[in-house]
């Protein structure tokens, strides 16, 4: 792979993600004001001292946006990593062991997927106490059902290949077969899937926060900021749209990269001309 073969759209995506991550890491350095400091009148328009204006409590919108990147990206990434690890381990176990284990995991997964994710989250979060790690865990478990499904399909695709059979005939153990034979051949589609899950996590977290069930105030996060400022809309104050646009932009950037990864995967698989 060389850098030149990466299309412009993917470069835009990569740049967007990089900016968001830089904001998240260096938030205290970049942000002009503190995350929770009330610095002016409420809902001041953009411009002047406050580049993007102020929010419903008179806090600087830009600063909160930068700090919000931190929370949003951290929670979404953590949830994705956990869901991915969980989904991959279980799906590869199911694919390699087969038989009863596979049946058990797959049927339970079908059951979990029979309930829409958001509805499931609402029901569960209604009972559980509100903690950040509980939120991450709930998001991760719900999302891992999707990872399990695709992971199992991909692993099964590879597991029936003859080189895996050849490794079995040689007497290799399950660990070798998973890590040396199957995993290297599934990385590309799984990487794309990781991006897709990450984009979904960002949207899902924002939705939960918007509904008041995600990250709790006064911590800044993009979905919560929309909720805080939504009452201004009716007066023509666009403060709620700014974090909304941030969510959309980040999700679009991730999707642009995913789109490229997927195209790359499919062109690796196909391309068998018949002459």
């Amino acid at each position, binding site marked *: 792979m060389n850098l030149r073969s990466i299309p412009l759209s993917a470069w835009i995506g990569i740049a967007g993600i990089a900016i968001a991550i830089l904001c998240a890491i260096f938030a205290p350095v970049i942000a002009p004001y503190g995350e929770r400091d009330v610095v002016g009148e409420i809902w001041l328009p953009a411009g002047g001292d406050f580049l993007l204006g102020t929010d419903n409590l008179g806090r600087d919108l830009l600063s909160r946006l930068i700090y919000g990147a931190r929370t949003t990206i951290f929670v979404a990434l953590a949830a994705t990593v956990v869901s991915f690890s969980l989904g991959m381990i279980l799906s590869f176990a199911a694919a390699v062991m087969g038989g009863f284990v596979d049946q058990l995991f797959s049927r339970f997964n079908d059951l979990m997927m029979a309930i*829409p*994710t958001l509805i499931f989250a609402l029901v569960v979060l209604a009972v559980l106490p509100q903690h950040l790690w509980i939120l991450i865990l709930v998001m991760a478990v719900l999302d891992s059902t999707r990872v399990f499904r695709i992971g199992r399909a991909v692993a099964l695709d590879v597991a029936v290949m003859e080189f895996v059979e050849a490794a079995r005939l040689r007497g290799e153990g399950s660990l070798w077969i998973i890590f040396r034979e199957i995993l290297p051949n599934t990385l590309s589609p799984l990487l794309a899937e990781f991006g897709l899950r990450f984009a979904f996590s960002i949207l899902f977290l924002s939705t939960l926060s918007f509904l008041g069930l995600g990250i709790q105030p006064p911590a800044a996060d993009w979905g919560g900021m929309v909720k805080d400022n939504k009452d201004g*809309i009716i007066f023509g104050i666009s403060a709620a749209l700014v974090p*909304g*646009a941030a*969510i959309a932009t980040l999700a679009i950037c991730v999707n642009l990269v995913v789109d490229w990864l997927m195209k790359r995967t499919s062109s690796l698989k196909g391309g068998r001309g018949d002459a």
Partner: protein
Amino acid sequence: MMESGPMTGPVLTDGTAGEPPRSADLSGVPAKPNPTGEIGGTFWRRFGFRRPLAALILQRLGLSVGLLFAVSLMIFGGIEALPGDFATTYLGQSATPQAVENIRKDLGLDRPWSERYLNWLGGAVQGDFGTSWASKNSVSEQIGKRLGNSLFLAFFAALISVPLAVGLGMLAVQFRNRMPDKIINVISLAAISLPEFFIGYLLIMFFAVQWGVATFPATVYDSMSFTERLSAIALPVATLVLVVLAHMMRMTRAAILNVMSSAYVETAELKGLSTFRIIARHAAPNAVAPVINVIALNLAYLVVGVVVVEVVFVYPGMGQYMVDAVTVRDMPVVQACGLIFAAFYIFLNMAADVLAILANPRLRHPR
């Protein structure tokens, strides 16, 4: 439900094409009719052999009922197993042991959970979901009013989005890899990434606040006329349409492209048939099943999409009812709404599968 049959291995190693594996993409396809002739077996097996279509559909219906039952168990029992006590969380900060004791008795939480579950399930089957903890009203009564509103919203969203998505998908196929296709691709990619509430507020900002051509909030009440209702739901419907459109269109495009690149379409082309006939006679009958599948899946998504849209537009539907109940931890309402949403979702997914089975010629005309 994309499982490949366990028999693919040995079939492939012999290296001859023979016949393609039959409908490995459908779940629950009964094992290939036993070639050694042990047809005797049970009644079910004989039935599945003679009427594979009916057997498959019955199987799928049964699966859905079982799934719904398991979901009810999960929504009720699964929650029971989670840490935290309803009474304590319900009371929040003011939970003294005495108050907790009282409220437990009050809400009937002192009985064993299996008894409460059976009670609840028995009621739910008859349409009785108990009383709300918060308002002490009958849950079923509230849901009765709001479910209609939600379906009204989803119905009109589907009415607009389905033809639009299928049309755009076909347009994209027609101009495959040319400008219109690329534009549609980029726009739909962006649209997939927009959160529902962002689209909602964007529409409100422009159409209701700046230009004043639409109403906000989208309140509906009983005395409203039909046209008044329609104008009230214009923005929420537009939001829902935008949310599902991109997904549905992309999936439609993929489904049609898959059919168009098949060998039998090439055969039709080499017969010198007109483009119209190729599409109408050879591509369409085979594309119907996957496209219907796409539509049903997206309708299922739509049902869930109403939750956020209702909150944004303060629309008195099921979604808002549920979200409000979750914030005050009103469990009977949460459970009832959860079960109904899940039921719709399961039903639509089942409809998608059944339609796919019905549209499969291999199953409609068994050997």
